[in-house]
């Protein structure tokens, strides 16, 4: 079939990633599924859009991930007057060297938390386009590589829409997944309360690295090599085609979306310690990979409601389209 490659050390990868997950879950209580999806996204080398109310742990999640992986972490608070140079960096004239030198912006980090990304202008938003796609930044004809691994965690507030610039579809497409945190369960919140009542900022979170940057890069290297059997490819395509023929959607999922689904499924297989994709891998990431790529034809005024509807339709696809047996 494909060119013979080095066998994927799936059990070792699982061990590493399990360590990572358990490390994060010591802080993020009761959100195992979200943590799993975040790890999947990391393994796939994708970016994540977290859409939820303020204060449910979006930032903490991104921070914990960054800390657990021994990565640099930076946070950009997007506001309406933020400029692209505030994100990417700026070339300034160095008096002593008599030349322009590039001052790297906060984007030069491994994990970037783009907080409230829809609060800033489209101009600034689009400055993220290139870096999210290629992991590189071009300024004044110079190309600079950002950190590796590189992952953007953008957050959005779905309720407060006053004075926002909704992300254009092209930009949405560049996120591998859209996740939502949701409120914690009663018991989990109780534990949060009793354990860490005095916590002021996330800097005080006691969490250490369990995975090295190099390991993450190695895992990310393996992800596209995860074997996908032909029936799984057909299954993916059937799911994609269903979104394209569904009359309630404005437009179906792009080919980039199709590739994203495959990649996410491969990552999910690695997270489960498998060197091959099974149908459950596809279905486990399907909704998160596709919700933000689809818009309803009859748009609802309430974005939460709209998201629920889209998810409903996608879940229906999962039920009706036969899984390969």
């Amino acid at each position, binding site marked *: *079939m494909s060119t013979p490659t080095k066998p994927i050390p799936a059990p070792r990868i699982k061990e590493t990633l399990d360590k990572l997950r358990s490390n994060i879950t010591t802080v993020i209580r009761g959100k195992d599924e979200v943590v799993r999806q975040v790890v999947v996204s990391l393994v796939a080398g994708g970016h994540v859009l977290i859409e939820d109310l303020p204060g449910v742990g979006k930032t903490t999640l991104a921070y914990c991930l960054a800390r657990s992986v021994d990565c640099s972490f930076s946070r950009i608070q997007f506001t309406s007057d933020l400029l692209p140079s505030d994100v990417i960096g700026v070339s300034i004239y160095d008096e002593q060297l008599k030349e322009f030198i590039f001052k790297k912006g906060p984007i030069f980090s491994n994990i970037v938390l783009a907080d409230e990304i829809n609060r800033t202008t489209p101009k600034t938003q689009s400055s993220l386009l290139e870096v999210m796609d290629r992991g590189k930044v071009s300024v004044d004809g110079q190309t600079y590589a950002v950190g590796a691994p590189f992952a953007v965690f953008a957050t959005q507030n779905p309720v407060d829409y006053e004075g926002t610039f909704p992300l254009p579809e092209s930009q949405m497409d560049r996120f591998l997944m859209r996740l939502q945190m949701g409120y914690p369960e009663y018991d989990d919140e109780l534990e949060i309360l009793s354990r860490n009542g005095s916590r002021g900022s996330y800097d005080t979170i006691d969490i250490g690295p369990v995975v090295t940057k190099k390991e993450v890069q190695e895992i990310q290297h393996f992800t596209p090599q995860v*074997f996908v*059997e*032909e*029936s*799984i490819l057909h299954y993916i395509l059937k799911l994609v085609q269903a979104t394209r023929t569904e009359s309630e959607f404005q437009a179906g999922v792009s080919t980039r979306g199709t590739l994203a689904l495959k990649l996410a499924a491969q990552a999910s297989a690695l997270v489960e310690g*498998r*060197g*091959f*994709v*099974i*149908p459950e891998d596809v279905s486990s990431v399907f909704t998160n990979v596709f919700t933000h790529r689809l818009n309803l034809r009859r748009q609802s005024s309430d974005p939460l409601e709209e998201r629920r509807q889209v998810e409903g339709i996608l879940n229906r696809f999962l039920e009706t389209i*036969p899984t*390969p*047996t």
Partner: protein
Amino acid sequence: MNSLSLTDLHRLKWLMGQLLVLIAFWAMLELDVGSQPLLLLFGFVVFCTVLFPGVPSRIPAVFWKAATPAVITIILLDFFIHGADFLQPLVRMIMLLAVYRSMQYRSRREDLQLVLLSLFILVITGVMTVSLTFGFQMLLFTPLAMGMLFVINLLEASHRRILNRSDWEGFRWRSFLRRLRQGLDLRLLGFAGVLFAGMVTVSTMIFLAMPRFSIDQALPFLQMPGTSTTGFSDSIRYGEVSSLQDDNSIALRVDAPEGAKIPGDPYWRMIVLDEYTDQGFRMSAELKRNHADLGEGVLLNARYWDREGELEPSEPWLFYMHGNVSQYLPLLGPFDTVRFQKVTKTRAYPGLNLLSMEMVSANLFGYSVSGMRNESRLEATSVERMALVQHSPIPQPPMDYENPRFIQYPHTTRIVPAAEHDREYLEQIVEEITGGEQLDAEAFSLKASNWLRQNYRYGRNVDMYYDPMGDPLLLWMREEDEGWCEHFSGAFTLLARTAGFPARLISGFAGAERNDYDDYLVIRNKNAHAWVEIYDLKGHWLRVDPTPSAGSASFGEMAAASTSLVVTFSGWSAWTDSLRMMWYRRVVNFDETDQAEMASDIRSYASSSYEEVKSRLKGWLEEAKAWVTEGWNRQKVMTLALYLAIVCFSLLAVRYLYLGLREVMRHRGSLFGIRAGDPIRLKAGHLLQRFQPLFDHAREHLAGQERLAWQEARLGLLELRFGQTSSRAHARQVMRQARRLMRRYKPEKA
């Protein structure tokens, strides 16, 4: 719950299966093999499951554990005990299997078994009964079975499962049917119906145009044992013919040739009863023994009976006689040839123009008669002319067992009662009829019939009693004033003999119904009749029917002679009967010889080609032997090596081609429309489907090492199904391990 759910489809599938079984049972009901009560019981049980589909779920599981060996034991025992008549245990077996399958909720395999079983039942019974109902049942069965297979297919693709008790909770037929109706697109259904009707029409036309074998004759075990239920035997005890007259079922259908004059008063002669005894009339043993020609074949030619045949062969009359009616074949009168559908053992009475089979046929029996004439005067044979010149009656001789002395046939038509006072009584009546005059046969017949009709009327209310001392017929003449054909004919015969005219009683059918839709005659059992042939002393037997018609209840009415005996058979039943006739004309046709020829052709071809192959092989063997034993030289060795090389090379080439094709198929997924199924993937996929539900259960209920084993097995299966082909070294072990786990796992216990 207003729309059709998947469970509904499963229900529908199951119910359709039940209906198929019911149709099959209905077909089997017509098969007369003596298991009717059992069949009715089983049919009722299955019908109950249709009405209350939740019932099978209430049967405890332990029952099914015991049922399988029990069913097998019952079947084996049945075959062991009743193995001699193969058919009955066979029928009981398929019946039992069908009920067994229909009392449970079925998997796909079991569904298919049920469909096949029902089809088998239907086809077998159809072949054996050859009735029109079979066609109707097949028409019902086919779309139902097709629909069921369609639903099975639909469900198996994605939602394979077996119904269980909870599926039938709250089941209502009404709402189920309503959902079904809403789920169906009536236009599509109508379209499908039109297509089906078209297909049926075309296949019917092909079917009608095609000659065929009669399968039931080809397979000996399909031939049903005959049980004569009705009948004309060669003796008449009073009341036998009359009891038939209550039976409205059809005994005979007759296809008259085109242009043939159908007589207004057809008398279908079957038996001549010449001998008078005090128990009634019968065919004398001597007549049966000495005047019958035994024969076997498909053709019986009356020319051998010293009779002139027709110069131009005319179109034949076709007779279709139902099974078990009689061994005697109804005929109108003298004929030239009779042709049977198959080789038949016959007993012909040339002098009497009678024909009988050696055995009564259990199935529909067809024969064709050409050159048949319907005459009320039959020519007497030379023997009869010679013997019957004496004009005196013969008193019945006393039974003498020590020294049996038989009166030979033509003379038996002159026998009158033995008792002196009986004869005097008869002479007295003759005197009254003739008034002392010397009449000829025709005048006497008329006067005697009139006398009978004036003194007796037609009625069926007479008690059947026998006088142990005297003669029942004379007792009737003295005591009663109403009777039926046997009485009238018997009395007339005795009177005629007393008056000096030899006479014989004939039994058979009188009259017919002409089908309104298709030109043929229908003769029912109620047409059974007895009449008289009186010898006019000049070489002719004259037909006389002294019985007044049933309608003329009053004395002295001359009904029978004036009105036609052929009535019209019309209405719905006539129409369906005409369809049945069409069926008979096609199925029970007369092309046995062609088919036999074809069969023998095939056989000779097969044997000759076998011989040829054998001789050719032998020749080759000889050649090879010679080749090996003759001298070897360099050139021969070289040639041999060359051939070997060519063979090896082509084998390699084929293998290479095969491998290449396989690789291409694996790449493309399919080639020339053939889906390339990787066998191991397929196998693992099937196994995984059965494994998954158990795994889900086990994951919740097991812990530790056991659970780990399950997880490992599942991962192994998943890898075989979805993983790379390089990971297949342990495919067999993985599957075996998974199967072992599944076998040992008992969800109830855990």
